């Protein structure tokens, strides 16, 4: 048991290191994500030209929709890398645990999306002239938990849609319906903090529950998905 968990950890970190190195060399995912969400911000700012009070109400939705779409771009990239030269098969014939691959991918995507959020948030603040009325520190757990919720299911469904025809299209089709409670939690929670009208605690608990439930489910089922053929 101990050896198995240590091999899980070591393979996870080896894979994560490899992914980050590959991303660093090509910068495919990060560049496309960044540019994509920049476009979203600009286009949204053209389509809505709100006052400060109004923007507080809508910006929670805008931010998360932008990040959601940007995350989908990144999620499609992570597995595409493994499909080139069918490297995934090399992983599948090795004795390394399937969940190590999954965890590495989730952590990698999590880091990418968090970096993206850190870079994009100032832009949103500038474009929408934001001024937070509620306790601003609550945005941090909301962002972390919400991003994890998107990324954990997104990585799973991206792996699932690998095995389908027109896979780039499949990912949002599978991911969005399942993510509805998480998106609701993120958007409503962010809005609650921005307006300061009601407490965001419940949404943090909701996201936490969502994360725990789906992380467990993903870890339980990923092996089946990876080896389904």
């Amino acid at each position, binding site marked *: 048991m101990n050896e198995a968990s240590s091999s899980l950890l*070591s*393979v996870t970190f080896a894979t994560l290191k490899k992914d980050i190195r*590959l991303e660093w060399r090509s910068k495919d995912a990060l560049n496309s994500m960044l540019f994509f969400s920049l476009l979203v911000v600009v286009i949204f700012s053209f389509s809505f030209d709100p006052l400060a009070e109004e923007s507080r109400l809508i910006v929670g939705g805008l931010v998360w929709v932008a990040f959601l779409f940007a995350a989908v771009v990144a999620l499609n990239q992570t597995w595409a890398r493994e499909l080139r*030269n069918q490297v995934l098969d*090399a992983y599948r014939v090795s004795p390394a645990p399937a969940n190590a691959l999954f965890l590495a991918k989730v952590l990698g995507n999590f880091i990418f999306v968090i970096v993206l959020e850190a870079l994009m948030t100032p832009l949103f603040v500038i474009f929408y002239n934001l001024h937070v009325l509620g306790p601003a520190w609550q945005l941090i757990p909301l962002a972390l938990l919400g991003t994890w919720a998107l990324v954990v299911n997104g990585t799973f469904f991206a792996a699932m849609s690998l095995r389908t025809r027109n896979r780039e299209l499949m990912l949002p089709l599978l991911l969005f319906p399942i993510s509805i409670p998480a998106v609701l939690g993120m958007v409503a929670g962010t809005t609650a903090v921005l307006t300061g009208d009601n407490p965001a605690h419940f949404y943090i608990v909701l996201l936490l529950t969502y994360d725990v439930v789906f992380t467990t489910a993903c870890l339980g089922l990923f092996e089946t998905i990876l080896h389904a*053929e």
Partner: protein
Amino acid sequence: MLPCAWNHPLQYTHLSIGVPSKPTNSVSEPATTNIIVRDLVKQFGRFAALRGVTAEFAAGRFHAILGDNGAGKTTLLRALAGLAHPTRGEILIFGKSPQAACREIGYMAHPSLLYDEMSGMENLRYFAGLYGIAGDKRSEGVIRSVGLDPELARPVGQYSQGMRQRMSLARAILHDPKILLLDEPFSNVDVHSAREMVTLLRSMRDAGKTIFAVTHQALLLEGVADEFIWMQAGQIVDRTDSVHGPRLSTAVNTQQAEVL
């Protein structure tokens, strides 16, 4: 679990370059059966790649798998590697399922199974981690054994086809498997490199490995492979000692002659 114990340190480090010499299969030990395939069926919707393959293969021999496109060679190899789950039937490798025996199996596919953006050594270091092999010594040794330079910093994507095939082979033998499954190891490789590779494979067979190679260049393996397995329409139709040996099916004979 322990990282693989090396039963025999690299015995094939010296590449003898040139045309393979005459048959070495004067091996007369009673070969033990260690790979059993029973009534294997693999169906993809309206198409069946394997339709009831039943066979037993002996250890320590070089098997060449021949057949037309779509005869089910690659699927059989993938099933042996544990990549494709059979729709029906079973495979036993040393009495275990292919997944359970994965440490004994080295798999080399037609694509390189390597990351194009990383150098050969970086690739092998990562895959060694998957098998729990610590340290770079083993990886360096394996790269040398296939006739490449571990110091080469170029990413694999910029290798020539022949180098890439060899690096791919290095990845497959990294954990010193007892069974090697090779899918088209000589395709798109010039004759010279192909011959080198054949020599290398023969020396590995002599070191006690069981080798399965799917190939279209059967003549390359004449005198090297111990057995030729002929596949057609998702079944094994014949097993012979030589490419020109007696065959049950004349249909295969003529078709194969065209390929050669």
